[in-house]
C-alpha cells in the first residue's frame, strides 16, 4: 500500500519538493535576482505538476493520427499543455519586468541586497530624500 502510493505519487512529491526549494529561495535569500530565480523554479514546478496531470500511461502526444480513427491510440490530455504554454509565456513576461525593476533598484540604491536596501531606506527617510 505504502509502496504503491510512493510509485503513483512520486511525480507529485518531487514537484512539491522543487516547489518548496523555489519558495525557500524566494523567502530566505536577500538578493533580488536570486529571488527571481527562485520564483522561476517555483513556476516551472507548477508547470510540471500540470503536465504530470495530463499524462496518460502508454499515451502518445496529442497529435492526431489520421483524424482520430483508431480507438486503440491513446492520447495524453491536451488541455494542460495549452494552459501551460500560456503560463510559460506569461512567466517570462513577469520575469522580465522583475529583472527590469531589479536593474532600476540597483541604479537607485547601488545594491540588490534586501537588508541593505532597508537600511538605506531607513537612513534616507528622515532626510526627506525623494526616490526616483
Amino acid at each position, binding site marked *: 500500500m505504502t509502496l504503491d502510493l510512493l510509485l503513483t505519487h512520486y511525480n507529485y512529491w518531487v514537484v512539491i519538493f522543487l516547489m518548496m526549494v523555489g519558495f525557500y529561495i524566494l523567502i530566505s535569500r536577500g538578493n533580488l535576482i536570486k529571488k527571481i530565480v527562485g520564483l522561476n523554479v517555483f513556476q516551472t514546478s507548477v508547470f510540471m505538476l500540470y503536465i504530470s496531470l495530463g499524462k496518460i500511461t502508454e499515451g502518445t502526444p496529442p497529435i492526431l493520427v489520421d483524424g482520430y480513427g483508431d480507438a486503440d491510440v491513446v492520447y495524453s*490530455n491536451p488541455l494542460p499543455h495549452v494552459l501551460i504554454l500560456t503560463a510559460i509565456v506569461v512567466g517570462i513576461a513577469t520575469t522580465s519586468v522583475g529583472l527590469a525593476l531589479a536593474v532600476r533598484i540597483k541604479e537607485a540604491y547601488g545594491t540588490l541586497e534586501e537588508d541593505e536596501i532597508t537600511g538605506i531606506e531607513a537612513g534616507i527617510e528622515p532626510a526627506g530624500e525623494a526616490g526616483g
Partner: protein
Amino acid sequence: MLLTLLAATGFALLRIRNLFAVVMLAGVYSLLSAGLFTVMDAVDVAFTEAAVGAGISTVLFLGALALCGHHESKPGHTPLLPLFVVCLTGAALVYGTMDMPGFGEASNPVHHHVADHYLEESYGEIGIPNVVTSVLASYRGYDTMGETTVVFAAAVGVMILLVGGARARRARGGGEEG
C-alpha cells in the same frame, strides 16, 4: 531519472552564491524540465520551455547580471523561520496529494471533461491534426489573446522602467552640471 536530476539541480541552486553559476544552473534546470515534458508527451510545451525558459530567460538574466554585478552576500538572518514555513507548506501539499488519483491513469477525472471533446471533434471542427494548436488558437483563443496583452503590457513596463531610468540619470547629470 530526470526528476531526481531536477531535484539535485534545485538543491544546487539553493546552495550556490555566485549568481552567474546560479543563472547557468537555472538554464540547465529549464532544459531538464523540457526533457521531462517530452517524456510526458507535452512536446509543444517542451519546445516552448527550451526556447523561452532555457534560452530567452537565461539571456535576460545575464543581461541583468551584466548591469548589476554577480555576487550575492551571505544572508544576514537565520534561515530557521523560512525553513519552518517551507516545511509546513510542503507537508500540507503532500497531505493534499494523498487524495489525488495516481499518476498516468486514463480514468482520472482531468481527462474526461472537455478533453474528450477536443480529441474526438477537433479534427472535424478545426482541421488541424495537432490538438494543442487547435485548442490554443481556436477553442481558447481568448486566452491566447489575453496572453499577448500580458506580454505587450510587460514589454511596455520594461521599456518604461529602463528608459525612464536612463532619462532620470541624464536629468540628474544635467542638473549637477548646471
